[in-house]
């Protein structure tokens, strides 16, 4: 991390960039937060460790038109989102200095909590260079857990250790994938319609409409979200009843279909633990099945299958009836 921090200080000092988007220390050792640094002094608070799961690519939209370059720290999976934003003309590649940061998987504090770890005062072994176990210093004494046990669910289906777009790479990355990306989707596909309905009814009923999923999502980057738009008579509808609430998540999944890179931020930030990424992943699986494998954000020039047409595209009648049981 020190190497990264030194490099950021250097970039600001020599005027290569006007600001840096990274993470700063939070009020707890496990909740660093995204931040924008404009001076060397501010960078004192810079931090990068296993808890820096936030995807910073979306923040680049706001700085796209600012004076001077902006450095941004992107993990391998974040670079897919950045590429997708390039494709949608939302970020300015020329104005960005992308530091591909190393990643050996990001951590989920809930996993520690579920293992009964409480009263955390400090955490060791979460640095990006580290190997071995994570040690929690708690008011009840030291507790250790394997790094891999603490990984966010999304890291078990890691897209790989390569950055899709960068100006320089600092630190080593590791492919942490150890399960199939579509296993969970397949489980749901195998359910009957009634079971599926009950499953999502249960999950989505937890929604408190905090909008965290929408606000964090790099694909949800509209200047004005349709759900806030007075033009459609749809603003605040999601608050009305549980039906509209469900529609909010389903419509959101439709709106990001074909553009979602499966970064998993929606599920990471959901305070209610709703597995929102499952909707998106189902769309991705269907797109793969229908039009051949496609990873949004892999190549900013590639045509998205949902906004492109070829004569080989399947006909609606071929898709009808899929998933019925």
């Amino acid at each position, binding site marked *: 991390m020190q190497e990264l921090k030194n490099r950021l200080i250097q970039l600001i000092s020599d005027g290569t960039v006007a600001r840096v988007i990274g993470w700063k220390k939070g009020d707890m050792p496990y909740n660093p937060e995204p931040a924008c640094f404009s001076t060397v002094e501010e960078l004192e608070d810079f931090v990068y460790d296993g808890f820096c799961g936030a995807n910073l690519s979306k923040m680049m939209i706001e700085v796209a038109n600012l004076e001077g370059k902006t450095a941004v720290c992107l993990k391998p999976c974040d670079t897919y989102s950045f590429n997708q934003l390039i494709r*949608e003309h939302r970020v300015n590649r020329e104005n960005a200095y992308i530091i591909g940061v190393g990643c050996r998987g990001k951590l989920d504090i809930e996993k520690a909590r579920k293992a009964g770890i409480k009263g955390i005062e400090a955490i060791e072994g979460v640095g990006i260079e580290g190997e071995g176990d994570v040690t929690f210093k708690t008011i009840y004494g030291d507790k250790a857990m394997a790094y891999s046990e603490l990984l966010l669910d999304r890291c078990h289906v890691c897209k790989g250790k390569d950055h899709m777009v960068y100006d320089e790479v600092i630190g080593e990355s590791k492919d942490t994938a150890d399960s199939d990306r579509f296993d969970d989707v397949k489980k749901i596909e195998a359910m009957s319609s009634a079971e599926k309905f009950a499953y999502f009814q249960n999950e989505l009923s937890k929604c408190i409409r905090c909008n965290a999923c929408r606000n964090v999502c790099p694909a949800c*980057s509209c200047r*004005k979200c349709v759900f806030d*738009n007075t*033009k*459609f008579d749809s603003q605040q509808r999601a608050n009305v009843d549980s039906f509209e609430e469900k529609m909010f998540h389903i419509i959101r999944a439709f709106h990001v279909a074909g553009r979602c890179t499966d970064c998993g931020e929606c599920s990471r930030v959901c305070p209610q633990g709703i597995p929102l990424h499952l909707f998106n992943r189902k769309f991705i699986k269907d797109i793969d099945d229908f039009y051949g494998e496609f990873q949004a954000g892999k190549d900013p020039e590639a045509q*998205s299958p949902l*906004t492109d047409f070829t004569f080989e595209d399947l006909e609606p009648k071929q898709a009808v009836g899929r998933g019925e049981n």
Partner: protein
Amino acid sequence: MQRIGVFVCHCGSNIAATVDVKKVVELVRYEQGVVYADDYMYMCSEAGQQKVMEAIKEHNLTGLVICSCSPRMHEATFRACAAKAGLNPFMVEIANIREHCSWIHKDMEEATKKAVILARAAIAKVNLNTPLQEGESPVVKRALVIGGGIAGIQTALDIANAGYPVDIVEKEPSIGGRMSQLDKTFPTLDCSSCILTPKMVEVAQHPNIKIYSYSEVEKVGGFVGNFEVDIRKKARSVNEDKCTGCGVCQTKCPLGKTGKIPSEFNRGLGTRSAIYTPFAQAVPNVPVIDRENCTYFKTGKCGVCAKLCPSGCIDYEQQDQIVTEKYGAIVVATGFDIINLDKYDEYAYNTCPDVITSLELERLMNAAGPTGGHLLRMSDGKAPKDIVFIQCVGSRCADDRGKPYCSKVCCMYTAKHAMLIKDHWPEMNVTVFYIDVRTPGKNFDEFYRRAVEQYHVNYIKGQVGKVMPQADGSLIVQGSDLLDGKQIKMKADMVVLAAAVEPNKDARKIASMLTASIDNNDFLTEAHAKLRPVESPTAGIFLSGMSQGPKDIPETVSQAGAAAVKVIGLLAKDKLKTNPCTAKCDMFQCNGCSTCANVCPYGAISYEDTLVRGPGVNETRRIAKVNTALCQGCGACTSACPSGAMDLQGFSNLQIISEVDAICR
């Protein structure tokens, strides 16, 4: 606030027998914005329209809801009626309470309820309607005909004779299509090429017609009156301008003598050389080199044709060429083929050379065919004594091996084949297995009866279960005779299958390019089955021949002429009214993401750096801009736009949502 008039039509008893129209009037009278509601026996009649116009004036109406038949029937009628009374025509909405309601329901109470709901949806929409103005676009006075068979030829000739230039695009080296492969034609038995060849020559010599043979339509852009089409002229390897059609290249091509390359024109029963014209009367009479088989292209050696060509027109280096041309109208005349018989093992078509299709029989009986017009078995070259015809192979088929429709031409051509065979070789026994014999058409039944009564063709009502090739080279046909209630086993030397017709394999691709609708069988759909049978629902696209459905030559020629008339009617106009229901971008919501431009089939959306000024914003942004001359109002952009910035005038998101809300209320 709108002042809306609602008019409920009885349509005689079409609507009134199932929908309580009086009740509909009473229930919608108090909807938001409605100031007048009434019903009438025939709203579309002159008296009905008069009623509407009077109400507009008397009640100062700003919007109309007509509860009647499909807008496809009478939307234009009522828009014109509104315009006559001084109302903007786009303030009229139709609630379809006939096709969507009275015709499909039986219960009056339920149907009335639904009619009210449909009326409410239309009222909710009119409340949000705004007046729209039609624009104008010029018409390119040139037509494109895709397909150079008899349908395309006739359409092209009729358009050209009216004085408009026409291009024919034909993917084969010569125009002529299936008709050029036929021997004789029913019901008059005149020789097919004798009547077709003069037409082909007329096309070739017509000053208004240009033939792109060995060419395919690659891309279609634009819209009615203004299509822009890319035509791929496939490399012929022969210079069309220099070639005199002397034929030396074909006779000297070393591959011609090897008999290795099957002739497509002769349905694989004969062979051809690598440089070839499909048949002697080909138009244009310019050969092509089949690069897949040509020795020069495979090994770089040979070059015999180039050495011997007296006019030096062989060009091995020739490349495919893309020609871009503008057209006001496009006619689809892509024709048909017969189905692949791989799924019909029971007839032994793939295993026995003496089981042939009717189209192959046409070639065998033709004097210019592979046997010089002698009916011979392909296995041993002997003349058959017993011939069995099997009807409906893949036609009227209940399972997915074949087609659900009747191919329409088989009964007649089989009667023709049977008679021709009996005429030439009276000693041959001819048997026909049939499900029904269908002979509607002028002089058709007389023709069939001649086969039965004068030529004593043995017609057996029943299907064949199996054709079994025997060790001695003969065939055993096992079938049932439904009239006698007997199973039959019959010896045959040759079996002829009336394979179902199906649209040309390229029909679906071409329909996609044209955004023309197509049915499950890949036949192009007409705008109205009865009233607009030669037009596609897509404006400026017309249908000719088998591409629209099974039909024989006289029908094809009539339809070709009808399509030509429609084209001429379009090209005769200098300007067309354009649809004002075009997309519009709200710059405050636009993300500049290009999604709309990616999905726009008409290339109507571009992006411009635009100064956006409004509450809280004052900056230059990348904003979508719609070219309303190109926009066809398809709405693809409005549904693709993630932020809802794109909206379709006349069908705005809010209008549609309010209709849905009215229905769900």
